[in-house]
Every structure is written in C-alpha cells, then in structure tokens.
C-alpha cells in the first residue's frame, strides 16, 4: 500500500512540476493566436522529454551517478565543457525567468510592483535551496502545482466545440492572418519549452539525491510515462482556454495576468484564485529546480561535493554556486528587463541547446560499462536517434526563425 502511495505521489508531483513559466506563457500565446493548431508541438515535445528523462533516470538509478559526472568521464573534458556551457547558460536564463515569473504571479494578487518583489522572491528561493529537505521541496511544490488543473476544468466549463478543436489539432492548420514562418517559430518555442534541458538534469540528479537503485526503475518509469504526459495535458489546457476566450477577443498574450483571464471567465474568482496559486507554485518550484540544476551541473562537472543530502558545510562550493546564481538572477531582473521577454528568449535558446544536452545522454545510456544489462534497448535507441534529428533541426531553425519573425510578431 505504501509503495502504491509512493508511486501516486511521484506521478502527482511529476504532473504538478511539469509546467513552468515557459509553458504558461508560450502555451497561452499559442492558444490566443493559433488555437489548437500547434498541439503536435506539445505532443512531440512531451514524448521527447519522456524518452530522454527515462534514459537519464535509468542512468542515475543503475550507476548511482548523475548526468554531467558521466558525460565528462565518458566523452572527455572538452565535450563535457561544451555540454556544460550550452546547457547551463540556458538553465541560468530559465532560472532568471522563473524568479521573475514568481514575482509576476505574486504581483497579480498584491499589486506590488514586481521589481520590489524580486529580491524577496530570490531570498526565499535561496533559503529553500539552502535549508529545505529535497523531498519536502519536491513534493510540496509539485502538489501545489496541481492547482493548474483548474485550467483543464475551465476548458471543460467553457464548452468548446470538441470536434472542431480535434480537427484543428490533427490538421495543424493555421489562422489566415498568421504566416507559416510564425507558426514554425512557435512550434520550435513550444518544443523547446516542453524539452527544457534542466528537466532532465534535475530529474537524474534528484534520482541520485533520493538514492534510486535498479529496484526503483518501475516507479521512475511510472513517473515519467504517466506524470509527464498528464503534465503535457495541463499545457494543452492552457492553450485551450486561451483559444476559447483570448483568440475570439483578439487578445495576444504579453503579460501573465492575461494568461489567467480565461479562468475568471469560466470559473470566476475562486477559479482564478486557484490558478494564481498554481502560477506561484509552478514558477517557484521551477525556480528551485533550475537553481539546483545550475549548481548540480557545475559541481558534477568539476567534481565538487554536491547535493542537498549532504550538509551545506560539506558542499560549500555547490552552495556558493547556488547563492551566486540567485544573486545574478536578482541583478538581471533589477535591470527592469521584462521577465516575459526573458521567458521568450529562454524557450527559444532551450531549443538551440537541445542537441548539446541530449546527445551525451544517448551516448552514456548505450554504455554497458555504466548500465550493464540496463543499457538502451532497440526502441529507446530508435526513439532517441529520431529525436536527436528533430532536436538538431529545431536547434538550427530556432535563431533564424526568431530573427525573421522578430520573435514571433
């Protein structure tokens, strides 16, 4: 019974922890402009993150070591450094966006300017990273993130024409006023948001923190193959409500406040209050995950003691990186840069960094020295290789599309 509860808890936290500021903003922008015609981008992205999260989780459970640790050892310091720089730069950018996202979410219910909130949010994130237990942080924030289920309820309540939406999703059609170049820009952005590199680093490093063993593989797979797709459904619900309320009204999404308006239309004040709780939990949870991922990646590459399972005094350098990256994020946000703009950049540059992040994982997951009998099977390799091709195409197309469409205008 206890084991089943553990599996259920893992799945629920995976659902609640799946959505972050990038998913919130990008899905709402897409729903408000393209309806459900970019559903395939989310479906392909979610399947991709499942494939690679399962690989990296398996590596952590079988070898007891995290991704960067093995990448450096298996592929050498040069490739490891390339992998580190590419992934960490994007993760740091995402960390900035998430802290800004928490401040924007709190601003919605306090009307206090986000610039005044940013230092306090940063301090709170750092305190959680420093003091809170890993399982407590993951479970509490993941479960609170489930509040975003209110978007699915609101979608249902709005009573859309399901057959029309299904045709729109299956046919990948676009509204007449939009161009295919912009459509593809948002396809890549949604794909990047779904496959953000930090998710894999956090997942595998978390597995090491929680001391997974090969016996935990079924639970890990349940979390990935049930939790992540259900999290993807939340993303689609955000696009869905935007397609029902914002698209007909001619509203394009520039602020977090606009993302929540359809929930108010469908469910009123109570529904909106739950949605704002979901915003805060999702962005705060993702801020903790991205902050830790920055620390994990550097510490694992350099070989420092890392993790929240060791006392901070024994992992001084790791905690120093956490503090420095939090201060850097606060400093960037205090320049008055728009957190939504940072989010838009972070999802596009996530797409650019994807091959650098995922190729080494595919290599390590095929190494019998580390994984023995748990090495990649044929299906994992076919899917992994197919996704590597898609990732490379997305990475090559991301910046030209961003320039040509002037960030999707």
């Amino acid at each position, binding site marked *: 019974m206890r084991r089943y509860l553990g599996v259920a808890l893992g799945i629920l936290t995976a659902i609640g922890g799946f959505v972050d500021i990038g998913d919130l903003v990008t899905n709402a922008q897409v729903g408000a402009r393209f309806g459900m015609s970019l559903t395939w981008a989310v479906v392909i992205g979610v399947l991709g993150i499942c494939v690679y999260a399962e690989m990296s989780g398996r590596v952590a459970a079988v070898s007891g070591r995290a991704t960067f640790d093995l990448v450096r050892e298996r592929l050498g310091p040069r490739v490891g450094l390339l992998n580190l720089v590419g992934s960490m730069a994007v993760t740091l950018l995402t960390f900035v966006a998430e802290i800004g996202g928490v401040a924007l979410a709190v601003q*919605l219910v306090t009307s206090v300017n986000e610039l005044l909130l940013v230092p306090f949010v940063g301090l709170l994130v750092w305190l959680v990273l420093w003091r809170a237990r890993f399982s407590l942080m993951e479970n509490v924030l993941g479960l609170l993130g489930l509040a975003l289920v209110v978007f699915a309820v609101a979608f249902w309540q709005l009573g859309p024409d399901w057959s029309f939406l299904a045709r729109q999703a299956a046919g990948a059609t676009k509204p007449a006023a939009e161009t295919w170049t912009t459509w593809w820009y948002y396809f890549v952005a949604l794909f990047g948001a779904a496959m953000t590199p930090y998710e894999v680093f956090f997942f595998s490093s978390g597995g090491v923190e929680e001391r997974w063993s090969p016996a935990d593989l079924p639970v890990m797979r349940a979390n990935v193959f049930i939790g992540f797709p259900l999290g993807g459904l939340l993303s689609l619900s955000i696009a869905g409500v935007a397609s029902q309320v914002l698209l007909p009204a001619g509203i394009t999404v520039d602020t977090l406040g606009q993302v929540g308006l359809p929930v108010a239309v469908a469910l009123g004040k109570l529904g909106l209050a739950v949605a704002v709780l979901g915003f805060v939990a999702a962005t705060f949870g993702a801020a903790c995950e991205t902050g830790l991922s920055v620390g994990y990646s550097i510490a694992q590459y350099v070989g420092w003691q890392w993790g929240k399972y060791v006392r901070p005094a024994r992992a001084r350098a790791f905690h120093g990186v956490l503090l420095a990256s939090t201060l850097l994020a606060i400093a960037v946000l205090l320049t008055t840069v728009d957190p939504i703009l940072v989010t838009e950049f972070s999802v596009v540059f996530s797409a650019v960094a994807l091959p650098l992040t995922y190729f080494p994982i595919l290599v390590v997951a095929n190494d019998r020295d580390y994984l023995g009998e748990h090495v990649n099977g044929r299906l994992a390799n076919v899917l992994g290789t197919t996704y590597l091709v898609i990732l490379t195409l997305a990475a090559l197309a991301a910046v030209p599309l961003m320039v040509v469409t002037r960030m999707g205008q």
Partner: protein
Amino acid sequence: MPDRAPCLFRGRGPVVPWSRRRRALTLVAWLLGAVLLGACAPATPDSQAWRASAVQTLEDTSSQLATMRLTVEQERRDRLPGRYAVTVAVDSEEQAAMAAESLTGQQPPGTERRAYDRVSGLLDDAQSLISEARIALVDGRTQEYPSLLRRLDRMGARADRETERLR
C-alpha cells in the same frame, strides 16, 4: 626644410608621419560623429516598413483595448479579484504606451504624413481611454463600466478599421 614630415609621436614604435596621423584622426572623428548623430536621429523607415510598423502597433493596441474590455466586463460581473483586475489594467496601460512609443519614435516618410496623423491621433485616444478605464477600476466606479465597455468596443473597431486601411 626637414627631409621628412613632422611626427606626432617618436617612441619605440614606428614613426608615423603627421599628415597620415591627422588623416586617421579626422576619419575617427567623422566616424564618431556619424555614430553619435545616428544614435540621436530617429529611425527613418521607408513607406512600406513604416506601414508594417504601424500595423503591428495598431494590432498591439487593439489587443490591449480588448484586454481592458474583458477585464472591465469580468469586474462588472464580479468575477475578478480587485487587485488582479488593477494589475491587468496597469499592465495593459504600460503595454499600450510601449506599443505607441515604438511607432511615434520613428520618423514617418513624407508620403505617410496623413496616415501618421491619423494613427498617432488614434493611439493617443486609445491610451487615454485605457487610462480612463484603469482609473475607474481602481476607484471602483461601477456605474461607469457600461459606458466604458461601449467606448472600448468602438475604439477597438476604429483601430481594426485603420489596420485594414494600412495593410
């Protein structure tokens, strides 16, 4: 008469003739001046680029008018917490101002002066209306909401007509 031109510097490096040095300094001064002038002068797009920019600005403004309309409507139906409505309204006001600034900061081509006058007038009116709606929301003047909703509708339709005209 010296056998060579006067030199500006005589250090350990090669001796550079004064005339060549002066030409280089003049060139640097011209380049610096051009950069500074370029930084001060407004962008001067051609007619097609200006129209594309105007259409984008009008679409952004129209989106903010629609956001304000939805916010006032939900507030009228008591479906929005007050602070949320105020934050969305303030954001809309800022976004509309930014959109207008992105266009009015450009030098309109001579052939587009009449279009510029129409568009800038519309943007001013839209910003004023959005500010008026924000003030009513903050003060909770519910009796003004029906009238604001009608005016926001009309202003949105005016922005859409101007957009079509410029396409």
